[in-house]
């Protein structure tokens, strides 16, 4: 089946899959968003325990999605993996440190003799949810704005600045994207809490906080969207790479389906916020979840399709990466495509487990009764 597809078709299929995994990861970052709200929504330790318990049953999915995103990039676009991770060294390392401290914090936070004390682990969770997510936004932003790398004839790459990716924080678009993801994660966390927790005080506090975060999210989102539509992008034709004004706006117009996806996703997220604030609905997370996946998917596809570079080089434009010059071979992409047929099965059992575990909302009483809790 897949072996009959052209290399370009496989490259497109894999960029779509990577985009989908990226979109699902952004959705699941509600876990990170929630981690930044432990001292905002919760007013005491008991309430914090409820928030942590609610997030703690999902945190591994966010961790796994990030690993999956990295693994898929490695397998499908090894040159991108090599150039970006080996070049923007400090940024990726900083992100990794943020995730190391998350992995232990849920389990160790309340354990006796945990060496650092509960507050430290809660601070780790906050760092993961704030610095980690903003840095991921900055790293993703460089896919649009470019990185300072060069590659030689053998496709071996190096970074031309000693700041190894940290210079990305000076680009307003990258930073705005980072904050957009951060506030999106918080908004989604609030929608998730409304759906998952049955404690009146927490629900009340969540709705109050949702107003503030929604305003900030919408502000940053509009800013990023405007910047994206008006910025220049990098296009390629054969081996040649060149700058095109309003490239992403042009990509939207060239691919109406992406535009529809983007607009539908945006409306769904806004609708989710609206019904949660004004209709007392607890179903907002599902609308915002689907909406987030739609928006992020459309933006990633905007980057990979219509002869657009997926990682422009600011040091040597001809070194820029595209889905065509950075992918795995036809054989590997074919083999991997068969493996990808397992993805719906994975999504199905995640859905099944999620549904089984969330039949009843989280309460303080339930946590106290459970022998294992965070």
């Amino acid at each position: 089946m897949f072996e009959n597809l052209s290399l370009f078709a496989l490259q497109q299929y894999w960029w779509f899959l990577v985009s989908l995994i990226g979109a699902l990861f952004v959705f699941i970052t509600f876990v990170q968003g929630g981690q930044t709200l432990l001292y905002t929504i919760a007013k005491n330790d008991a309430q914090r325990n409820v928030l942590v318990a609610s997030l703690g049953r999902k945190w591994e999915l966010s961790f796994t999605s990030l690993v999956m995103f990295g693994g898929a990039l490695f397998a499908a676009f090894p040159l991108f993996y090599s150039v970006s991770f080996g070049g923007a060294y400090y940024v990726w390392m900083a992100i990794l440190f943020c995730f190391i401290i998350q992995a232990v914090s849920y389990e160790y936070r309340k354990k006796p003799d945990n060496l650092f004390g509960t507050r430290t682990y809660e601070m780790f969770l906050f760092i993961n949810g704030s610095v980690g997510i903003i840095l991921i936004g900055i790293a993703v932003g460089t896919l649009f704005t470019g990185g300072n790398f060069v590659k030689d004839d053998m496709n071996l790459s190096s970074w031309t600045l000693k700041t190894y990716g940290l210079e990305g924080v000076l680009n307003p678009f990258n930073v705005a994207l980072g904050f957009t993801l951060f506030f999106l994660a918080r908004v989604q966390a609030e929608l998730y809490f409304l759906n998952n927790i049955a404690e009146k005080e927490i629900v009340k506090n969540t709705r109050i906080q949702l107003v503030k975060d929604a305003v900030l999210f919408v502000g940053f989102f509009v800013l990023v969207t405007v910047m994206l539509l008006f910025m220049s992008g990098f296009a390629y034709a054969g081996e040649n790479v060149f700058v095109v004004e309003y490239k992403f706006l042009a990509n939207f117009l060239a691919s109406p389906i992406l535009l529809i996806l983007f607009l539908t996703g945006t409306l769904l997220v806004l609708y989710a916020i609206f019904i949660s604030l004004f209709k007392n609905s607890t179903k907002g997370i599902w609308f915002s979840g689907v909406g987030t996946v739609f928006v992020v998917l459309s933006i990633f596809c905007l980057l990979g399709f219509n002869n657009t570079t997926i990682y422009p080089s600011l040091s040597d434009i001809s070194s820029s990466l595209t889905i065509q010059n950075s992918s795995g071979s036809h054989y590997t992409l074919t083999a991997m495509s068969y493996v990808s047929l397992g993805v719906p099965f994975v999504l199905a059992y995640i859905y099944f487990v999620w549904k089984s575990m969330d039949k009843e909302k989280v309460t303080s009483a339930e946590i106290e009764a459970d022998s294992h809790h965070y």
Partner: protein
Amino acid sequence: MESTLLVDLSRAQFALTAMYHWLFVPLTLGLSFIVAIMESLYVKTGNEEWKKITKFWMTLFAINFAIGLATGIIMEFEFGTNWSNYSWIVGDIFGAPLAIEGIMAFFMESTFFAVMFFGWNKVSKKMHLLSTWLVAIGSNLSALWILVANGWMQNPVGMEFNVDTARFEMKNFWDVLFNPNAVSKFLHTIASGYVMGALFVIGISAWFLLKRREILFAKRSMIVAASFGLLTSLFLVFSGDESAYQVAQNQPTKLAAMEGLYDGHSRAGIVALGQLNPDKQIGDNQEEFLWSLEVPYALSFLGYRNINAFVPGMDDLVFGNEELGIESAQSKIEKGKVALDALKEYKNAKKEGNLIAATTNLQTFRDNECYLGYGYLDDPKSIIPPIGLTFYSFHIMVGLGGWFVALFFFVLYFSMIGKIEDKKLLLNAALFSIPLGYVAGEAGWIVAEVGRQPWAIQGMLPTGIATSSVDETAVMITLSLFAIIFTALLIAEIKIMLKQIKIGPQGESHV
């Protein structure tokens, strides 16, 4: 080639991460199955004591699992951050198992982990048991794919070098998956994890018996773990033999270093115990050992299944042995340089549109392609891995493996006849064997990875070429940070674990 310091720092960082990771993974592999067996006994018998036993070991499993994840994520991304040339040159083959690991194993582990720990009152008993088994299976599937990738590094198969993209590309997925080296490596490694899990359960149960606490819990735990440990340790010996056989076939320099064998010969014996002569150099006539105890014929037999087989030593592999058709390292290096030059000329000719020159150079490259990796080396002696570290690590691993078989046997025997509580010496030995399990596991990985040097991919890609082109200072900073954070988290993990053990299975409300 990058500076030696950068390569060493990058190797140190990866080794640090891998060694910390391997402190936690074996216990995850082993304990997950032991817990699943215990829960199966609970579901089958309905006996609440088994549920209590299961939940206690599950708590320890979770503490260990969390930090295992933390170190695991780093390893995947370090291939990109510190080994970016590697990621490009072999990413077409190496990336696939990592991605499959994510799809097939990580999601299974992380999804059912939530049910395993928080689902006792939310799903049926059988669904809970299934989830526990799926976490165990997911952990082991994860090991399968990462070891397929590692097995390929030891014995690269199923691929071809693409001159246009300047990288190795996969040509046969099944060859990569069923690479004999990967199969034996997987079986040997998971078996070592099972043994570690069993040692852990037996050791802690022994502590309870020595303290005269939780007697029923400890005795039941011991019987399950000792049975599991005895079976898996015997399998560990069997798979270790197969692993060494694969090394003999594909990595003769590693085998020679493992055995301290300089001068190859037929009917070679295995050095069971010995001290290497520190003054001995490759090619000189000094004695290899200051003293040694050898099992005659064993190396020829285990390495080649023939007691008369010739086992090449390091001198043969460096200087060659015409009589036996062993090519010298110098000759391989020269051919490798021819391949590298031809590759460069081929690319230049293609750029200039000179098809005749491109075709000629391509042919020259193909004729010398199998020596490509050697073209990056200069010193023939550099094909030999660090001998002392490889030799002693190998012997420590094997010696401890033998001890574990004996320990499981005696613990099981005395448990079965109901006298285990009286055997204080054995109980103390079981307790102090917990760290020995970790020592054996780490030693095994030193043999595998240090013994592969100077190669990142055996015979194809030297470590010095595989590294990222970043500043030494940058790697120094991250290496220091990793060392600090991993050490701090390890101390936290040990403290938490010890506290939970002291609380014991009666502390139902442990958090």
